[in-house]
């Protein structure tokens, strides 16, 4: 984006709550079952049925809202949102319109900036439509209503986000908070966390909002970042040319890295909300809400402070580790078994994050157990393997799931600390590099590191660097 414009971004995040049963009926919520096997007359919208609210869905929604610093409203109700689309057999979705469960929260970003949360409300999820072959040429849609009626919360931010990086930060923190309190597994690939983004641009210094577009079909946090960047650029160019931005829904096309308008001229959305007559209002007991607040699990901010206090970690390390509960749990278990909090943190933030990144894996998919990393760390501490080799072993553990002992044994990676074994190699390296030896003797310190490197290379990284150092010094000084 040129410096002339700034973006105004608001995010709507839908999160599936991990209750056992659906929000208004007793069907299970399990993911990945045969189509239309987790349905009953209520979630199929058959005539004459009565939806009854799931208490646990309310509890989890309240937990989430409190963790997001919201006020729980004293009177909330449900409404029907009417639209015709085959993912909803009733032709309406039960949602909350003007009296949501919670309002006025916030999430604090890394730099301390607060992003407001306008509201958190409860609603039911819709079914899933699948298509045979290409969607554009398909003649039919196939509807599976297993997901229909799974409890959702929708979390609507204020338009306080100013660039794609802040959007990503907000989402990462939101996901971390929800995972910490355990109300959702927040798996974007399974659709248990979904993001829609509203974005507009305006001249820097302007206080009015520009015309916004809504981005849908965003499959990952990275796609949120890319989609918003693209859309900001596109809108800025339109304004530069004096052309209007059209208010519309646009789909993010991940493959081509562009956003597309799906429809031509579109009638303004008109959902004709009205109060759901089958569900009575919620007037939650303030004592019950306070009880939930008191028993909330440790939130990321508190956990971060504890990591700094208990483990003596730098703020930066603590912040990165707590951003993902599976990682924070993994870390804490390693420290419990091994000690040396900073060593463990370096391994998790360095090697583990690098491998997760390279493999495109989410932290919650990690199969490696803390005890396995700890065995490797112990082998390193006891000098069984060198630090360099340990990294290779770790990569193999990560990829194959094998334990470090058998990898070291199989590939003969035990560190060589035996002086009599290393001495001939040291002599050989000195003999083969007379110029480097001269450099070192005339005062070039880096020359020494080169010679150590040669010995390491000759042993494929297995030499104990401390022993090599000692032997080289003995010969050269």
């Amino acid at each position, binding site marked *: 984006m040129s410096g002339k414009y700034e973006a105004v971004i608001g995010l709507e995040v839908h999160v599936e709550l991990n209750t056992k*049963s659906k929000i208004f009926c007793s069907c*299970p919520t399990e993911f990945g079952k045969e189509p239309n*096997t987790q349905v*009953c007359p209520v979630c199929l919208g058959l005539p004459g049925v009565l939806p009854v609210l799931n208490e646990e869905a309310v509890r989890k929604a309240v937990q989430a809202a409190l963790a997001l610093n919201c006020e729980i409203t004293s009177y909330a109700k449900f409404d029907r949102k009417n639209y015709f689309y085959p993912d909803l057999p009733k032709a309406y979705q039960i949602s909350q319109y003007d009296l949501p469960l919670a309002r006025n929260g916030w999430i604090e970003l890394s730099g301390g900036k607060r992003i407001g949360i306008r509201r958190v409300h409860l609603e039911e999820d819709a079914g899933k439509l699948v298509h045979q072959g290409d969607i554009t040429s398909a003649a*039919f849609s196939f509807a599976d209503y297993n997901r229909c009626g799974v409890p959702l919360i929708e979390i609507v931010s204020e338009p306080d986000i100013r660039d794609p990086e802040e959007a990503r930060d907000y989402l990462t923190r939101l996901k971390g908070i929800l995972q910490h309190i355990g109300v959702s597994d927040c798996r974007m690939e399974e659709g248990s966390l979904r993001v829609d983004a509203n974005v507009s641009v305006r001249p820097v210094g302007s206080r009015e909002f520009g015309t916004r577009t809504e981005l849908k079909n965003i499959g990952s946090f990275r796609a949120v970042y890319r989609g918003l960047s693209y859309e900001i650029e596109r809108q800025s160019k339109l304004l530069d040319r004096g052309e209007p931005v059209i208010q519309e829904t646009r789909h993010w096309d991940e493959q081509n890295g562009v956003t597309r308008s799906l429809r031509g001229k579109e009638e303004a959305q008109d959902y004709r909300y009205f109060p759901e007559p089958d569900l009575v209002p919620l007037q939650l007991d303030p004592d019950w809400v306070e009880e939930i607040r008191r028993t909330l699990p440790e939130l990321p901010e508190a956990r971060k402070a504890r990591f700094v206090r208990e483990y003596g970690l730098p703020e930066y390390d603590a912040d990165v580790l707590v951003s993902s509960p599976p990682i924070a749990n993994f870390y804490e278990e390693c420290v419990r078994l091994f000690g040396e909090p900073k060593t463990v943190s370096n391994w998790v933030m360095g090697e583990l994050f690098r491998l997760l990144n390279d493999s495109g894996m989410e932290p919650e998919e990690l199969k490696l157990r803390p005890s396995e990393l700890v065995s490797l760390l112990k082998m390193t501490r006891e000098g069984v393997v060198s630090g360099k080799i340990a990294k290779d072993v770790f990569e193999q553990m990560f990829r194959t799931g094998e334990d470090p002992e058998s990898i070291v044994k199989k590939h003969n990676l035990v560190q060589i600390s035996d002086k009599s074994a290393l001495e001939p190699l040291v002599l050989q390296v000195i003999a083969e590099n007379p110029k480097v030896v001269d450099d070192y003797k005339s005062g070039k310190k880096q020359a020494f590191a080169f010679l150590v490197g040669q010995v390491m290379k000759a042993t494929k990284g297995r030499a104990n660097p401390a022993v090599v150092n000692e032997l080289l010094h003995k010969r050269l000084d």
Partner: protein
Amino acid sequence: MEHTLSLEEVRHVARLARLVFKPEEEEMFRQQLSRILDHVQRLNELDTSRVQPTFHVVPLKNVMRRDETRPCLPRDEVLANAPDAQGGFFRVPKITEG
């Protein structure tokens, strides 16, 4: 106060309800719906400044069930009334989103 609906408004609500009317029907509904609105408008003549808003007519609140699962409907029964089904799915005409 006379409330007169325009033909455009009639067409709009018809479109939202996926209904298609003949021109003479549009005019008939315009008149009928206008009369209904006028009738309801009479409520505005009452002084409700001291009346609490009614969101629900039943004097109940917080009716909830425990988070327990129960057996679902067998799939052949689920699909029994479906106009069209295939492979365990309801089969419907493809509709572009909106």
